[in-house]
């Protein structure tokens, strides 16, 4: 082999590693290493000054499954994800179709839909705190106008989770709309005209052409919404603090509570590992399964 060519190939490989190095170093330091360290940590008991930490195997995981709070939190999170994900995706899609149509004040509509996303989460949560205030809040003012009695939306177990869910949908739908809007703009208008000539109405066109073409975006948004549903914590700090009686407690808030309120970091670590595991599996399954039925252009 030509010496020059060999040298050039080696150089190219070197460049590749050099380019990947910064990201690799940062990822190792702040993602891979902490994940492994957390896993390792979850295998030990909680150490105190009198009883040092000892290796416990998967005992911490067993404790979690035995804890009724675990099941409450898991169920809460399932309901939370099960409602927020589909509803915010559907809203995002409808808003994107609306904002993509030829309507007056189109850019105003677009930015209006996007506003909740721009607001800091803490600010947004405080805003909603005011909406939900019993008797004085906007919602009770409206329902009160029709004669309903004041409701403590965030303060009673029956409505606390639902109230948090509504805030999340309000916040996320506008964000996901941007992705749908971008995808819609890549679909050539010819397709709509061809479908019209072939006799497809608005609904048929949406179902047979638009939705399948938006499938890659839907997967992307779905995975994001999925991850967000386990990542939610800031709203809870402001709105309910997980209460009352754990009625609105979600996984990440519970982990935070275990680690920093009760200083039980081994159990928090175990829970974190479980979450990572589930999220990873779901993401892989989603991309694998749905990719088969998806057309990427």
């Amino acid at each position: 082999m030509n010496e020059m060519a060999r040298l050039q190939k080696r150089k190219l490989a070197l460049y590749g590693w050099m380019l990947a190095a910064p990201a690799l170093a940062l990822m190792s330091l702040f993602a891979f290493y902490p994940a492994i360290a957390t896993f390792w940590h979850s295998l030990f008991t909680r150490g105190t000054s009198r009883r040092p930490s000892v290796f416990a195997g998967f005992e911490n995981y067993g404790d979690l499954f035995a804890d009724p709070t675990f099941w409450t939190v898991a169920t809460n999170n399932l309901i939370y994800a099960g409602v927020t994900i589909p509803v915010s995706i559907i809203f995002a899609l409808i808003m994107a179709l609306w904002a993509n149509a030829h309507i007056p004040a189109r850019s105003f509509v677009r930015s209006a839909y996007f506003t909740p996303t721009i607001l800091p989460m803490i600010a947004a949560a405080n805003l909603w705190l005011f909406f939900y205030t019993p008797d004085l809040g906007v919602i009770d003012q409206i329902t009160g106008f029709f004669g309903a009695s004041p409701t403590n939306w965030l303060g009673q177990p029956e409505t606390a989770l639902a109230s948090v869910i509504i805030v999340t949908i309000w916040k996320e739908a506008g964000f996901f709309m941007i992705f749908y809007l971008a995808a819609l703009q890549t679909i050539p208008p010819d397709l709509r005209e061809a479908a019209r000539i072939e006799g497809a109405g608005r609904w048929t066109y949406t179902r047979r052409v638009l939705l399948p073409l938006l499938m890659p975006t839907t997967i992307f948004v779905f995975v994001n919404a999925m991850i967000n549903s386990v990542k939610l914590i800031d709203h809870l700090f402001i709105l309910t603090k997980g209460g009352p009686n754990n009625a609105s407690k979600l996984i990440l808030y519970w982990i935070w509570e275990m680690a920093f309120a009760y200083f039980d970091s081994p159990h928090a670590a175990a829970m974190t590992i479980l979450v990572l595991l589930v999220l990873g599996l779901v993401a892989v399954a989603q991309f694998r399964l749905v990719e088969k039925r998806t057309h990427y252009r």
Partner: protein
Amino acid sequence: MTAQMTDTSPFIQINAVSRVFNGGSGVHDLSLDIPRGSFVVLLGPSGCGKSTTLRLIAGLETADQGRIIIDGKDVTNTPPSKRGLSMVFQSYALFPHLSVAENIVFGLKVRKTQKAEIASRLTEALRVTGLEGFEDRKPAQLSGGQRQRVALARAIVAGHPLCLMDEPLSNLDAKLRHAVRKDIRDLQQRLDITVVYVTHDQTEAMSMADIVILMKDGRIEQVGNPADLYLKPATAFAAGFVGSPPMTLLPATALPQDVIPKELDASRLTFGIRPEDLMLSTKPDAQPWGMRATVTGSEFLGAETFVFVAIPGKHGETGDATARLSGRVEISPGTEVSLSWSGAAAHWFDGEDGHRLTVTGPDIAARETTTTIATDTAFSTL
């Protein structure tokens, strides 16, 4: 409406239709009759309103004024799907997520056609367009020509009597374009459908059309069969647009006085001559009325050679002309030549509105000539 009446009346009637967009483009007061079973080409430069006309027929645009009648029915406000037509788009507009077969039967499925009939129509459409074996491919896995055929198959599968085509060949390479041109023409005749075809390519129009409708600025410039357009262009614009290379157009003031017909006013007159009617002589002043010019370049194309010449005008400006000589002619730039033509081959247009002026003088024939170095250049006799 009875069958008899529809047979005698034109298949498509466009009556005084206007569709004006913001900015003034569109079509203005357009009236047009298209006979059943004909291949009609809407020809014109970009922005001339040919695509708008097609979209008005399709129902993708709504007329501001006027009526559109297809097959005896007033369809001015009828949605596209109820007009009994199909369309081939410039981009083909194939659904990228559907296979070839699904693309073709999309409309049949939407219209809830029987399964068995869908299958038999699909087989027929695949056979006619030579797409057998490609049923399960996605559009992205096809070549440009194959995609074009899928678009054609989708257009013919429903058996509509009218097919609209919007520059269907513009995305193909030159060689394929030539073959597909013939295929489309054959298909139209075999299926006995009416085709309205939009193009800016005059070669396509000339080679495919029964009737060419030449448009400019939203109005019809000339309607006729390809020979009419070529031999008797109604306006200077038509003369310059049809034919390749285009007709040479010069202000009559650049010509020697004695070649201008006496009944015409030379001060506002445009002279036109087809490249094949222009004869060159290297002997200056071979004819008493030969026009002097300088060769600026030439293109050898195998069977013929185009020679470009500059004609010095009276006021220092030059007019450009093209001569088409058969075979190989070696002539270097800078050569002084004398131009001549058969008097009958000259076209005269009004210098202001561009309309064709008819000349019927006996003195024309007297100017006939045959002496030329481009010996066997055929005359297109009127």
